[in-house]
């Protein structure tokens, strides 16, 4: 039996690693931001990956260009995301939701194209990406870069582990902040705007201003996701911000259930578990000759992955908009 030749143990370890590791933390954080946008404020942000990129580049450039210390770099990254939110939000938030969707998807792509352009190549290092910013951050690493951390067979090298811990810690802080915000009068107004903007305005709430605040908040959290990713990968590649990744975050959010506090975390873990398991299995099957190379090779596995997410997103949206664990009653997303 050829299936027995596949190293299932290894695939499972990989699966656990990505669903607890850097990938899941980054995606959870980006989806937390998206949850603020869409789940709580009803904003259609189709360019979250742009915020992620702004955060990452803001942090990276602070070190490579201005030699700032890590904490200032963090603030600059958040500042980049804020500016991006203002550029997107000021012209569009007075208009119908579709406009924000169109502008965000376009703006996110502008960020990527600018970052990889030769015109800005001196600054952003073009398509090869930004390196050499990691030093000051690594100095803060309390873990031994040479050692491995983890439980049982799931082990992360020290530097990686540092990024993962930072990632989940930032996620936890973000969740606490949002939890507090959403049970306050501020959150009430934001949720009211999601339900019906005109009703909120008729009650004297400045819907535009609240939407802008929500856009900035979710955008900054997206920016933090970018910073965590940069911390873990020690490089910032423009092509790791292709538009499709925004919809990976959307899939994460809908998987977990839109508008609920834990949904991005749950969604990210499930998302990465499924994706890695699928990818590992498929790669192994190609390697073992169970799938003829004429049909596909291992490099095409990740393309299949994108397709899968596309189908998954469409199906989830139609059949389980309340998330895979949610019930119809607690569905925030008004699909009908």
């Amino acid at each position, binding site marked *: 039996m050829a299936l027995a030749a596949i190293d299932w143990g290894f695939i499972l370890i990989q699966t656990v690693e990505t669903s607890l590791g850097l990938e899941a933390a980054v995606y959870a954080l980006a989806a937390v931001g998206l949850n603020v946008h869409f789940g709580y404020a009803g904003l259609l942000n189709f360019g979250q990956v742009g915020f992620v990129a702004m955060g990452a580049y803001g942090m990276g450039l602070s070190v490579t260009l201005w030699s700032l210390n890590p904490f200032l770099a963090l603030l600059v990254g958040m500042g980049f995301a804020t500016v991006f939110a203002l550029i997107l939000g*000021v012209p569009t938030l007075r208009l119908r939701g579709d406009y924000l969707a*169109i502008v965000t998807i376009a703006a996110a792509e502008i960020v990527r194209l600018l970052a990889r352009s030769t015109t800005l*190549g001196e600054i952003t290092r073009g398509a090869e990406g930004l390196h050499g910013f990691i030093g000051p951050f690594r100095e803060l690493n309390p873990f031994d870069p040479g050692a491995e951390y983890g439980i049982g067979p799931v082990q992360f090298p020290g530097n990686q582990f540092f990024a993962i811990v930072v990632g989940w810690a930032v996620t936890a802080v973000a969740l606490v902040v949002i939890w507090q915000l959403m049970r306050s009068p501020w959150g009430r107004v934001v949720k009211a705007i999601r339900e019906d903007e005109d009703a909120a305005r008729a009650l004297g709430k400045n819907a535009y201003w609240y939407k802008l605040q929500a856009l900035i908040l979710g955008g900054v959290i997206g920016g933090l996701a970018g910073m965590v990713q940069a911390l873990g*990968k020690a490089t910032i590649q423009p092509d790791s911000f*292709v538009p499709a990744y925004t919809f990976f975050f959307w899939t994460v959010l809908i998987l977990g259930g839109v508008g609920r506090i834990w949904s991005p975390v749950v969604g990210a873990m499930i998302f990465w578990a499924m994706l890695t398991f699928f990818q590992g299995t498929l790669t192994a099957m190609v390697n073992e000759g169970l799938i003829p190379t004429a049909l596909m090779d291992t*490099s095409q596995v990740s393309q299949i992955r994108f397709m899968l997410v596309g189908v998954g997103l*469409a199906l989830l*949206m139609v059949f389980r908009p309340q998330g895979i664990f949610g019930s119809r009653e607690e569905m925030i997303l008004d699909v009908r």
Partner: protein
Amino acid sequence: MAGVMLLMAAPAIGQSSETVGTRLRHQNEDGERVPVEGVVISVTTTDGSEVGEGATDSEGVFSVPVSGPGVYLVTIDVNTLPAGIRLREPDRTTVEVEVLESRDGRAIFSLISGDAEPMEESGGVSVRRVAQLTTEGVKLGLFLGMAAIGLSLVFGTTGLVNFAHGEMVTWGMLSAYFFNYFGLAGVFGFMAGWWPPLGEGVNLIFAAILAVIVGGATGYLMDRWVLRPLRTRGVSLIAQMVVTIGLSILARYMFLFVFGGNLRFFRDYSAQSALQIWIIEITPKDLITVILSVLILIGVGFFLQRTQTGKAMRAVADNRDLAESSGINVQRVIRIVWIGAGALAGLGGVFIGLAEQLSWLIGFRMLLLIFAGVVLGGLGTAYGALLGCLLVGIGIQLSTLFIPVELKNIGALVVLALVLVVRPQGILGRRERFG
């Protein structure tokens, strides 16, 4: 895209030790990325002790195994680069590479042709240049407009922004490519040896007609099997929009899977020398496609103004409830709009592919420009979409007088944002759509 795959790909499975290396490739005049062989690469640790040295192989690859995760330095010997190829950044001969557990470290050296400037020339405003760029702009604008009318009419009649519209453009382009080269056998191998266009390719003109039919059929299927069921289920427009996004990602990466990441050309009419008309140079194929687009767009205008169905479309776009209560079969109108949108997008794709190159990603890139045009002209208005796209096309081309060519599309998208500030309803849009 290679970078994305590299970065996002999960660790290679079944590998026990890490390697450090590089893969040198260089983009030739045809836009193909070809490996660069025989370049000496050395790998050292950060404290300078050597790990390995050697020359790149026929795939442009050199790599050495390393003892474990850490940071390594990869240095390229520029003296061993073939003639005519140099580093884009001459000072960057050494690259720092981080190796994570069970992940290989790859240094990326960006190579360019020695005589090619990193940027196309952008200086000099002359009458000739302005005329030439305006012509290019009109051409681009017409092709965008052809695709945009469908997007705008779908929005007008159903309220849906179809994010998969760009993939409908790519789909037209790629189906024309397959009909042009292989016939259906290119996809369904068992058909090999059958009659054209099943078993082998046909002339591009015939292939384009087939692509338009395929596009129209796709539009029909999108409506019949995806969006109409969603409408009857009462699924909200936002959810419908996300569904079209899911489909667009599915389609985009399906194209990549089947077509590959390389840029290609149609079999026919790819190399043509330009005609000189007054002070403008234009290739015969461009001239013909421009004339064809104008004729087709006039035809569409005639259809919308004069025919019963066209009037019904405008009525539905104007006020759906009113149209429905005055006896117009709205579902039928929407179906026809979708078929037309698919067909026009497909034809737009063929024309764009003929003027530029074929790629799996072109539809998405065009979609952003189409959005800019449609918003500029007024979301939901057919003529506004066309006008907006023409302005965007001309604007993009003329902007290269002042900004680097690689940034030209970005300029169009910045204009999009500015339009929303100044006149959100677009040039031909009406104010009451907005609160």
